[in-house]
């Protein structure tokens, strides 16, 4: 177990290192500097601005400084916000994104399990079909379309929830719903497929023969066995949530990382683009590692070993 963990952590760092390197050089290929109105700056002003951002040094040196900085938790200075460290930017933007992501995951997974279970238990009935359509719609309707519809109809027309902004729990509801669609759909599909298999297995037949109630069977036997592989879904779900958050946060004016990322791209704020990329990758890597560990703990059939895959 320890050997396996060490190996995984090594790969985690290797991954992040590669991500940081590739992003760094990709960004170096692009035009644009922190200079706002280059034409009006004198040579010495330009020099001191570039020096402030460390852009006066040769690229290879900038690279080593950047990589070294990451270990100290420094990701450079933002071009967009003057004198603002990217790490501070990410830190202060993290809260709302994490809250929305967590809530969306919770809502999506819970509802997804319910929908999936209904589909599996009532296989090939109208209930199954409704559940299937709902879950596939969750994949087919892009989150940006859903967000706009939710904002307009639930927010403005019906006035149920705040339209946009970020000052209290009620403001999180619409963005949470918009984000939850995709995890809901993925979970529902996964649970349904898995439970259909489980429900046809011998021990369920035995449980039926023993006269267990339908709910009892599903709750005690089928669901438990389907939930374990669910853990592996968390990584992809989180990645999907990151994607969704970029537009959903923008539409609902949520001060989150996704919103900042889109803005950074649009204004060529390279240090922030790099920082957020590394942050997202680190987050995903950690989640993947965690899910593997959790999976190993809750599923006794799997023994983590050091032998690669």
């Amino acid at each position, binding site marked *: 177990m320890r050997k396996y963990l060490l190996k995984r952590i090594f*790969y*985690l760092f*290797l*991954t992040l290192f*590669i*991500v940081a390197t590739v*992003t760094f050089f*990709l*960004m170096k*290929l*692009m035009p644009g500097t922190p200079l706002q109105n280059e034409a009006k700056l004198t040579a010495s002003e330009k020099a001191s601005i570039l020096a402030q951002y460390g852009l006066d040094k040769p690229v290879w040196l900038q690279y080593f400084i950047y990589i070294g900085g990451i270990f100290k938790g420094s990701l450079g200075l933002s071009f967009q916000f003057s004198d603002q460290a990217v790490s501070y930017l990410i830190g202060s933007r993290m809260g709302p994104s994490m809250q929305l992501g967590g809530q969306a995951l919770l809502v999506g997974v819970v509802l997804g399990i319910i929908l999936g279970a209904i589909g599996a238990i009532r296989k090939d009935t109208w209930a199954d079909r409704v559940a299937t359509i709902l879950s*596939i*719609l969750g*994949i*087919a*309707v*892009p989150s*940006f*379309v859903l967000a*706009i519809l939710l904002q*307009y109809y639930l927010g403005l027309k019906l006035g149920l929830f705040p339209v946009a902004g970020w000052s209290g729990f009620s403001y999180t509801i619409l963005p949470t719903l918009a984000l939850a669609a995709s995890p809901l759909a993925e979970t529902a599909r996964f649970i349904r497929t898995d439970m259909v298999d489980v429900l046809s297995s011998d021990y369920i037949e035995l449980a039926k023969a023993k006269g267990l109630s339908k709910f009892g069977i599903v709750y005690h036997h089928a669901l438990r066995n389907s939930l374990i592989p669910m853990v592996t879904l968390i990584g992809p779900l989180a*990645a999907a949530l*990151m*994607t969704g958050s*970029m*537009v959903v946060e*923008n539409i609902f004016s949520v001060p989150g990382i996704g919103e900042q*990322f*889109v803005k950074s*791209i*649009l204004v060529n704020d390279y240090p922030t*683009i790099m920082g*957020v*990329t590394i942050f*997202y*990758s680190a987050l*995903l*890597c950690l989640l*993947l590692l965690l899910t593997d560990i959790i999976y190993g703990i809750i599923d006794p059939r799997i023994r983590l070993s050091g032998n*690669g*895959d």
Partner: protein
Amino acid sequence: MADNPENIEIKPGDFAPLDKQAGPDKEKIAAPSLTFGQDVWRRLKSNKTAFTSFIVLVLLFLMAFGGQALYHHDPNAQSPKYANLPPKIPGVNIHGLNGHINQSGKDVDAYAQAGASSKVHYVLGTDYLGRDLFARIMYGTRISLEIALIATLIDLTIGVGFGILSGWKGGRVDLFMQRIIEILSSVPSLVVMVLMATAFQKTGMASIIAALALINWTTMARLTRAQTLQLKNQDFILAARTLGESAPKIAWKHLLPNLSSVIIIQTMFTIPNAIFFEAFLSYIGIGISSPQASLGTLISDGQKNFQFLPYQMWYPAIVLIILMLAFNLLGDGMRDAFDPKSKR
């Protein structure tokens, strides 16, 4: 009781050979003989949802690639006079399709307001530059599909090649290749695409296709590798090897046909994925550049006027949703169809 005759003469003409065609044949297979493909097709047809999806997709493809032959409107022709006109179908008098619009709380004939003659009508309305929205949706669907298909093709080539190589070679090569996949898949795909799209300076289709292709092949590679690992120890491969068949030939003639079901199913999910990501990139403003349009840019443009001209977002969104639904449902159907266990 009659005595048996003493001598019976059997002449050659007394017996005739039985007509093999007429009689029952024990060797005959009652059901019609089907190839693997035919069998899949049959099962697919019996799955109503999947089959409907298939038909819908065929129709959408026809519309996207051939629609212009029937509907002669240039998707890029501007007539700013007629900007933002709502849908109008001659002879139909339902609100939303009659060219009327709700402006500042009043019902207004937008066509009359724009000074359009009674001959002017746009089936799905116009956009902010007075371009025919129906023509643009057809055009946008085509671009979206083109991007998705090309990206998927590249995915397929890289993914399958990588997977087979990795699975076939095994050992160190496999280990190394697996690490590459592992690293690639622990970077959020959208982030990679955004980086690519930004780095390539928004050169339009090519950069988006490259970005999509770069990230989506890992799943394909993983699946083919797993399948190859299973197949390569089976007898028929062993036989081929003993007969001295070269590795590329084995891969091409023996592995690939056996991998086809996995590949096809995965493709059915890669295409909508690519469509979705393209729409996403275009929506956040780093996708296709004007005057080209994709479903994503159309939705993004339409969304700005959603409060007043909901049709500008609804129509492209509906096409996108139908496309996504159809591909996903067909993919589900294919998975069942290719799975011999699900044979009924």
